[in-house]
């Protein structure tokens, strides 16, 4: 375990807004090829932590590296080496499926030929080749989310950050989405994911649970279940999150 390559490292990472400590000295490592579940109640500090890891926000104190780059000094390199997808951020609704891929490929500086082959790959893999000229806004939500994920790893990033990627998606598509995550992991992409579905917490290799800006637990789902003497991850989450003093979001 210790000789595994570390792709995310944080040490005492902290973000403070005036007197409010949103993220309070968090330290953890994420290993290459891992599915890392980042859980916490609304307002626990997940989004703030994720904004620091994706180099969108600068920490008040503490250190961190993502994909080997320092989050304070090398934000632009980090952005080039990660993928990001959220439930809210979707694709450009008034562009066609292939146009979205062309656009994001271009933004990430991929070559014309690479964009072409990857576009073909995704269209076949998602079984949407016949929809390549469809405007994204007209696709069903489940397809949009799968497409959005595929585009977030279009440039083969080292790490992909998924912020509640399956919110509101139907049960069958939700499961197909996780199969796409497993495929990405087989291709050595590390997955950092937040979710409010506790059954999905079980699909992660390791899970951290944030309470009031601190990481209160971090282990494999099986170890967390036995440590807290719970049947499932929902019970583990309820036990930890109920101790929260912050009443937020």
């Amino acid at each position, binding site marked *: 375990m210790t000789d595994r390559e570390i792709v995310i490292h944080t040490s005492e990472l902290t973000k403070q807004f005036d007197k409010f400590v949103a993220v309070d000295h968090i330290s953890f490592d994420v290993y290459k090829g891992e599915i890392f579940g980042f859980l*916490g*109640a*609304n*307002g626990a500090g997940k989004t703030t932590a994720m904004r620091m890891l994706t180099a969108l926000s600068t920490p008040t104190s503490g250190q961190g590296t993502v994909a080997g780059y320092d989050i304070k000094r090398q934000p632009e390199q980090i952005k080039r080496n990660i993928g990001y997808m959220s*439930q809210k951020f979707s694709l450009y609704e008034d562009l066609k499926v292939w146009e979205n891929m062309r656009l994001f490929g271009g933004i990430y500086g991929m070559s014309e030929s690479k964009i072409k082959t990857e576009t073909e790959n995704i269209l076949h893999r998602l079984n949407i080749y016949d929809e390549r000229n469809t405007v994204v806004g007209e696709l*069903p*939500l*489940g397809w949009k989310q799968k497409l959005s994920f595929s585009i977030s790893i279009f440039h083969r990033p080292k790490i992909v950050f998924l912020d*509640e990627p399956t*919110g*509101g*998606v*139907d*049960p*069958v*598509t939700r*499961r197909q989405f*996780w*199969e796409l995550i*497993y495929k990405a992991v087989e291709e050595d992409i590390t997955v950092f994911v937040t979710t*409010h579905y*506790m*059954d999905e*917490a*079980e*699909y992660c290799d390791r899970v951290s649970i944030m309470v009031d800006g601190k990481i209160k637990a971090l282990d494999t*789902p*099986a170890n967390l*279940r036995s440590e807290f003497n719970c049947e*499932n*991850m*929902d019970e583990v*989450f*309820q036990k930890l*999150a*109920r101790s*929260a003093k912050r*009443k*937020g*979001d």
Partner: protein
Amino acid sequence: MTDILNVVCMEMSNSTKSNIALTIDGLSKSYGEVKAIRSLSFTAEKGEIFGIIGPDGAGKTTLFRILTTLILADKGSATIEGMDIVKDYKQIRQHIGYMPGKFSLYQDMTVEENLKFFATLFGNTIEDNYDLIKDIYQQIEPFKKRRAGKLSGGMKQKLALSCALIHRPNVLFLDEPTTGVDPVSRKEFWDILLRLKKEGITIIVSTPYMDEASLCDRIALIQDGSFLDIDTPKGIIAKFKQELFSVRTDNMHKLLKDLKCYEDISTSYSFGKDYHVTFINNVDEKRFINYLYQRGHSDIYFKKISPNVEDCFMLLSRKIQP
């Protein structure tokens, strides 16, 4: 003693009035080519929590907007407490509360101003029905001078619910009140709903979370604008006629692929730490477990289980779109 009298009075009035809070019959609505809802019908009884359960894009919000008299259906009819949603829309608006999925209060008015405004719209004061919202409103009262736009998500939700209740509606429409809300806050919100139900308010609530189904008295499962089934949660589960099994091994990622290669498997879906599987024929347990050993699995756990609402939803949605 007064309690007993109250109960007697309530029973007398119930016997003289209809017990139906809401009836809809063949409601359809299209946006251009897109059929948002297709001939939906159901009846909700007074004082029940009726859940409309399905994913985003299934038609839940369109249905809610028609029932709250904000848009017109193309076809079909509906009545709320005997009032027609088209002819009697003005009276209906006096008797219903609506909390849309998107936060729709005035962002630049304070918490207190919003609540006062909504009370005034219905010719009430905050004090008139304060007892109904007291439990909810007290949690945000310390921030009553703050602008609504500056509240956190959880507090916005509590303010929106307070505003939807301040005129003491008979029927409350909640469109995805718990979407994007963490599991602890979701449980708290449902505790509030169960208390409101005790006040005799009929609650029509939509949600994409299948685990909330069991908290409803009756549910309608919706996908692609059509109801897959309408029943009590227990009734829906009782209709799942196949034998369902839970299986787990030491290598869950590999298990997913191996299950798909086993010719007698009908369906396999991940459910937290297990997979739920059904077989095409009667299960040959020995043969199946042998197969898993051959594929290199160990610590094999295999057990017959009873389905939950999510199992049923997936079975029903498979039937309409194989």
